[in-house]
């Protein structure tokens, strides 16, 4: 039960590499905060600094108002779950879970009780006398959790604890961790590179890129109002379609133009003073695949895009159409984005659309997609910051 406060945290390695830059973050008591970002963004380094495994170059880490910069991991009273579980191979499950209690000189009776309670909570009671090599991946993961839980620490730190599990088990353990964390009410910092995990688990999600904190907010806010191009591209799956465009504004109307397409600048933008409605302003247009629907009689009032269908993936609940559009796409440097986008082919940019499973689009067809244009995101082409109506920053 504790709150964590990070102020101006930076990590610079002796070789000059700046892994984390000036991160400020408050993590409330009992909160589950997810740190997410592509590999190498500094999220693990940040977690290890909180744990005390990495020196803090600049800034202050406080636990319940106590500055812990100089404290060893032992003194910080923080438990960590490692990606590879880091179970002691020569100790039984019982000893693995109880090791911290042994070091903490917890009386034997109490320790036994706590180990057994923890094991029961994690359904490990039958495995207490086995050693880690005799356990399955999921069981090992639970032992690693048990090792953290048994201590009732000030906070849990989890470093991609699910990434070594297969997909089905991962979903199951994800729910399990959320449940345990809620029941125990222990402040938790959870690191992952998987944005789905981040969105489903975190009460708040912190997006990190190149050691810089991009945005910290609830999953829904990150999705609806990304602060910048990176967050927009990183959050959401499949990720957002991004195109180079500009604003054409006359005295009567303003339009967003990208490639051969355009749509009216939604009202909320035009009413805004300043940069939003400037004529000729270079912008990046962000359209989530779920905002594109097939044009039907019901939505003729929406602007439409003409695309050519290249590939159709039927997922049962929905249909993902890989199409090309006459526009210039923006390459963001997120790996997730690179995966989702087909390379530009034949003078077109890739455009993903999530359509109804009943849609009858066929490969090779040219179709009209209606675009729910008020939802569209616009980013300043230069700064890559969101041109967000109504929410000044």
């Amino acid at each position, binding site marked *: 039960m504790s709150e964590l406060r990070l102020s101006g945290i930076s990590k610079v390695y002796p070789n000059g590499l700046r892994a984390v830059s000036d991160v400020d973050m408050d993590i409330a008591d009992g909160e589950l905060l997810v740190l997410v970002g592509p590999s190498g963004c500094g999220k693990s380094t940040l977690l290890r600094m909180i744990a*005390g495994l990495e020196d803090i170059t600049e800034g202050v880490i406080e636990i319940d108002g106590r500055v812990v910069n100089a404290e060893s991991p032992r003194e910080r009273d*923080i438990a960590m779950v490692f990606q590879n579980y880091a179970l002691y191979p020569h100790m039984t499950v019982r000893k693995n879970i109880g*090791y*911290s209690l042994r070091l903490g000189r917890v009386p034997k009776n109490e320790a036994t009780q706590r180990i057994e309670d923890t094991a029961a909570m994690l359904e490990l009671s039958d495995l207490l006398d086995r050693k880690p090599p005799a356990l399955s991946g999921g069981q090992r993961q639970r032992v690693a959790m048990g090792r953290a839980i048994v201590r009732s620490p000030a906070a849990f730190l989890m470093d991609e604890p699910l990434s070594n599990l297969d997909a089905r088990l991962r979903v199951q353990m994800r729910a399990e961790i959320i449940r345990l964390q809620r029941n125990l009410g222990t402040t938790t910092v959870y690191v992952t590179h998987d944005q789905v995990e981040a969105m489903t688990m975190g009460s708040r999600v912190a997006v990190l890129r190149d050691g810089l904190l991009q945005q910290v907010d609830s999953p829904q806010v990150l999705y609806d109002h990304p602060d910048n191009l990176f967050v927009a591209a990183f959050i959401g799956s499949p990720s957002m379609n991004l195109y180079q465009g500009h604003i054409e504004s006359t005295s009567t109307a303003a339009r967003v133009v990208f490639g051969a397409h355009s749509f009216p600048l939604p009202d909320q933008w035009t009413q805004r003073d300043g940069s939003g409605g400037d004529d000729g302003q270079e912008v990046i247009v962000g359209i989530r695949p779920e905002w594109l629907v097939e044009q039907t009689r019901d939505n003729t009032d929406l602007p439409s895009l003409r695309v050519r269908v290249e590939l159709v993936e039927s997922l049962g609940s929905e249909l993902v159409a890989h199409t090309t559009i006459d526009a210039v796409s923006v390459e963001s440097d997120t790996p997730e984005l690179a995966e989702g986008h087909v390379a530009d082919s034949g003078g077109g940019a890739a455009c993903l659309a999530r359509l109804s499973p009943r849609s009858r689009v066929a490969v090779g067809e040219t179709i009209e997609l209606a675009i729910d244009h008020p939802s569209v995101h616009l980013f300043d082409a230069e700064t890559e910051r969101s041109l967000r109506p109504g929410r000044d920053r």
Partner: protein
Amino acid sequence: MVFLAPATVIYSVFMVYPLLDSLRRSFFDDDGNFAGLDNYNTLFGNPTFADRFWDALGHNFQFFAFHMVLQNPIGLLLAVLLTVQSVRGLNIYRTIVFLPTTLSVVIVGFVWRLILSPIWGVTETLGIDTPLLGESRTVLPTLSLISVWQWVGIPMIFFYAVLIAIPKDLIEASRVDGAGSWQVFRDITFPLILPMLGIISILTYIGNFNAFDLIYQVKGVVAGPDFASDIMGTFFYRTFFGASGTTGSPAMGATVASVMFLIILVGVLIYMFGWQRRVTTYEL
């Protein structure tokens, strides 16, 4: 089979056959007549042989004890120090410690004879007034220390190889669990290098009971003074080839060699059944 054949043949011809033939010869006299256990009776019953044999065996155990108590713990300590990341120039230290191991025993023996020489050596400067290699009391410990100095690089490299294979995660997990440096070593590192400790111990045992060259180089076949540095290897050499006026006896030599073989065999069996079966090697 075909691929194993060359190795098997070479191993048989040069290792197994001589070993078996040596064992066979210990049951025959020097003229080739079958002698039953006569040679063994002579070895253990005739004071000229028996006294020397028990002396040499005792010295050999002392020699082994020095290595176990000094060489292997120091090797481990050095290996642990080498894994400390924050020290600069670790590779240089590693090379320096390993360097004597690569030298010929002849050179090592010669160098140490010079260093410890009462005439121009360092002993006087260090305030030691006994000739360390010249007195019965000090000669065996001194030779043991020279051997430890030369070979300490071997356990160091072995331990080092195991230590760097231990995942960092494990060490970090134990630190987060609240372990200090000593507890990390006692509870995590040490149990994980235990199998290697066994391997190094048995290699030390085999090496020590086969040892010969350093003592032969420094003290000659008579392993003086007054046989104070005599070990099984030098005893065998004298018995087989003869020395200082006495003629050697191949039959008796074969008998001594057979006993040495048995001593080492017992050690290896203890290791295999008493240790290896109980100590588990964990995949890390």
